[in-house]
């Protein structure tokens, strides 16, 4: 349930991001084009409902992410999970300022910002903010794309669509950033005239009181975030007192790893550079990571409902478990991977591999 909610809020946030970035790419044409196209791209998101949805999605997504972090048994994870986690955690502190200026500021008495005023802030008044903005754009885009692609990979329509999606993943942010640079050049030129700078400053800081409020909220928000993050990490550590018991995992192809307990079987394979299929990235959705337990099944915990559902969906045999979900206790276990590690998303639903991968509907 929580995973689905995280996914849905993520999709909402991502679609906003795509709209915003596509809007920004019009900066390559001109500053006025940028402003004019804003209506078209952001008309839903600029409404009250839209803003409320966005804010709610963001809070939910962040909270669910922190909960997932709390539930991790170990902080050792694959590179991609680590990147996803770190980038996700970095988003809020870096983005909060922009959020304040553009969304929350107008709600508490500030003025609605235009592209001109914000770009003046980025390129002329406080270039460090501009740098921060570019960095956070990259971070949000990568985090969002990783999440989206991991979800889309296991859908049946993915193989047809993948070829078109990948160039967009590179193209949209690149064009947006280039648009920002181009429009920035125009803005810098305009700001040669001090009247324009005056105008921008007026828009950004309508009055000292509002400004102080905004700054105060900014500081409180950031402080709160770091406190919450720290407490989540501490709580997690308290929950998981590391015991140094050893587990021996033997595969039927002869490889054997002796590791500390606390990792899932998939993580154990990954840590040791053993190729192991996992198309959904360890979220118990695709079933490609499933393994047959030849010995040591008593070391494994009970299957969760999502695991059972997925195993049922792929018509798995009784002694098969999902490697991404099971965390064995200490002892010795012998397993056999059932799906070749180089399986691609397009093979997941094809009829050839249907019997092994997704199971045939009988």
């Amino acid at each position: 349930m929580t995973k689905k909610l995280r996914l849905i809020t993520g999709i909402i946030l991502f679609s906003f991001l795509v709209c915003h970035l596509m809007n920004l790419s019009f900066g390559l044409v001109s500053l006025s084009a940028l402003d004019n196209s804003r209506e078209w791209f952001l008309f839903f998101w600029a409404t009250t409902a839209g803003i409320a949805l966005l804010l709610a999605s963001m809070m939910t997504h962040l909270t669910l992410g922190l909960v997932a972090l709390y539930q991790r048994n170990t902080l050792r994870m694959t590179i991609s999970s680590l990147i996803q986690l770190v980038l996700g955690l970095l988003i809020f502190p870096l983005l909060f300022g922009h959020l304040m200026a553009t969304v929350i500021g107008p709600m508490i008495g500030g003025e609605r910002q235009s592209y001109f005023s914000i770009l003046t802030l980025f390129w002329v008044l406080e270039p460090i903010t501009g740098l921060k903005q570019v960095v956070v754009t990259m971070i949000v885009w990568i985090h969002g794309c990783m999440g989206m692609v991991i979800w889309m990979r296991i859908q049946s329509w993915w193989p047809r669509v993948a070829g078109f999606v990948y160039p967009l993943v590179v193209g949209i942010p690149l064009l947006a950033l280039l648009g920002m640079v181009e429009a920035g050049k125009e803005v810098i030129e305009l700001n040669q005239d001090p009247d324009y700078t005056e105008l921008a400053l007026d828009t950004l800081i309508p009055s000292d009181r509002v400004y102080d409020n905004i700054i105060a909220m900014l500081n409180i928000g950031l402080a709160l975030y770091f406190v919450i993050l720290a407490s989540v990490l501490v709580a997690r550590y308290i929950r998981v007192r590391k015991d140094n018991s050893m587990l021996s995992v033997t595969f039927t192809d002869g490889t054997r790893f002796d590791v500390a307990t606390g990792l899932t079987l998939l993580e154990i394979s990954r840590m040791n550079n053993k190729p192991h299929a996992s198309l959904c990235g360890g979220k118990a959705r695709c079933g490609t990571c499933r393994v047959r337990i030849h010995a040591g099944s008593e070391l494994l915990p009970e299957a969760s409902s999502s695991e059972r559902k997925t195993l049922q969906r792929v018509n798995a045999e009784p002694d098969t478990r999902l490697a991404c979900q099971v965390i064995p206790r200490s002892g010795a276990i012998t397993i056999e991977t059932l799906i070749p590690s180089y399986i691609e998303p397009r093979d997941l639903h094809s009829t050839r591999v249907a019997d092994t991968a997704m199971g045939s509907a009988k």
Partner: protein
Amino acid sequence: MKIILCIVVMLLLTAAIVPAQAQTQLRLLGGGSEESAELSSGQQSSERDLEELIRLLSNPAVVKQLQQQLSATANPQSYDVLTVSGFENYFQGFLIKVDKRAGEIIFSLSGLPRLAEALSVSWADNMAGSNFLQSAIYVIIFLFGGFGLEWLYWCYLSGTLKRIELSKPKTYGRILKIAALRALLLFGSTALFVFGSIGLFIGFEWSPFIGNIVLSLLVGVIAMRFIAMISVFVLAPRVDDLRLLPLDGAAAQNIYRWILVISGIGIFGYLMVDTLNRMAVESSALLAIEMIAGLIFTSVLIAAIWKTGSRRRDAYVSSVIGDDADSAALLPAPGNFKIVMWSALILVAFILWLFEIDAVMWTLVILFLLFPTIKFSCAMVDYIFDNIEDHTQVKSIETGGEDDNADEAQSSVAPSRYQLYRPIAVRLVRFLLVVITLITLGVVWDVRSVLQSTSNTFSEKVFGIFIDIVFALLIAEFIWAWGKTAIDRKLSTIVIEEGVLTPGPEARLATLLPMIRKILMATIVMMVSLVLLSSLGINIGPILAGAGVLGIALGFGAQSLVKDIVSGIFFLIEDAFRVGEYIEVGDLRGTVDSVSIRSLRVRHHLGAIHTIPFGELKSLTNHSRDWVIMKLEFRVPFDTDIKLIKNLIKQVNTKLKENPDYGHFLIEPLKSQGVRRMEEFNMVVGVKFMAVPGQQGLIRRDAYQQIRDIFKENGIEFAQRNVTVEVVSDRELTRQEKEAAASAAQESVEQQVTAPAPDEP
């Protein structure tokens, strides 16, 4: 022997030629007064400069000195170091140079405390007027573009890469092909990164100083990625099956990481010094930075050697004694000598570099790298040849064909066709490495002129001679190794079976090949000694002329000898006869006893030995090849039953075939040929059989005996020479008359003269 040769070459090279730099410095130090006068005049106004110049040029003495100096620059006189005075001059110049450099180093070291300050001032100066944050944004964008394009590339091609990495090639050729394919894929991704990042870089407007720095950093990153790509191609740290070198996974990963670290530090150190140069930092500060960078690089190299060296040491120890901790304590730890030696070498090289004694530094580095490079290359060649064919398939033939012994023996005895080239490849690789080393050393020491042998100093001459000798010896060894290996390999495959009466064609190879080897050896030795003599400067013209005259004289005299030898070779090649065969030459006949280079010895069956030079063999009859047919005849009376004879011969044949001693020598059975001729008193019935050459006598003996026995049993009489006197008389003859008739008949019997017994075994 080879090591001594190399050491001697090394010593000669270090002492042979003066490097050009020390020479020019010496000239500058000595003849600087003229130039300083002209330099000081440059401080005046330009008009007066020109007037001054015109005045100087019109002075013939000045012009002459200028010309002399120009010609001296064009033809630098090199100090003849192998003479005492030459060496003194060279050494003096060397000391002056080192002294000067030491002064510079000490000065810059004394300025170290102020280094940081000087650098920051210079940095601030250069950065004034550049927009740092804007440039940071541009950097992030082009990095995103470059990496983004690369990511896009891998979206489509990562499956292909995985498939390539999972294939398991068996032979070295296939490993090379698949690794190259993988390298091509990796190259594509790096190329896209270059395209994306540099493309976007060009699209932005940069302030000059920052732009230069960013560009050099980007170029540094791209250079590192290409180095990483090449290392991945060769080392394949993650994929055991595609590794081109005989290393295990952990060692390959370790080496790969160290390569990245060392090349990273090297590249970025160089770029940093380059940037500082462009920042117009004070030269002593620059020197200090160079020294620090050099020191860091040297320490990283030494650390790398210690880390990898000790890893291998641990591996060696554990491989020798396993996990037995007790013996581990007893076994003396293998020494660190090599590691220490290499670390010392690197330190010395660093110091030489610091003092700008480049030539000696490069010589040291190249020569010390030569030995391990040769060892490594030869090991690589061996490894390649070991894996050049698919051993797993050969093994399966051996295990699968248990019932077929012949196949088993064949697959283990027959060497693969590539193994012939192994010693050639090893020698070729060594040869190439030595050539490359000599050429590199030549470039380092600026000895281009020497190779054109227009030199006139003693040391240059000696150097030239040594190069000639070394090359001649290397080439001779190369050819000899190839010839010897080919011949030895062929000889080892010859298995002369004992107890076979007519040995096969291997025997003649066994005669020919040693002969060819001796000829090859003699030719090579002769030619190498002539080359050596000529390179030492001895005029070999008279030697060649004398040898030529001697050769002609011997040739005329030895005409028939040569004719014998050449005919003999051709007879042997044609397989006209083999040792043990019964041959007939002219009216000499016998079994071939032995074959020499000029003649053949044939033993007559009565014991006499005929020695026949090959030149005399116009034609040769060989009675022992493949099969002989023997025809036997019997005289039988006219009323003999031919059909009965035929049946009886069949029975005899059966008995003959069953005989254990000679039955298997019978190729075609004994057959009756019916009546061959009709003679006066009898019919001649013939039988024939085909047997293995040499065994027909054995069969004939028993055949005759059994035929006689079986004819007797069946009532067939042999024809007897008799004269029937028909007496037309009505009364019986008297005894006298009978005797008279008998003696008359006797005469007619005796008239039939038998042919002389043929001379056959």
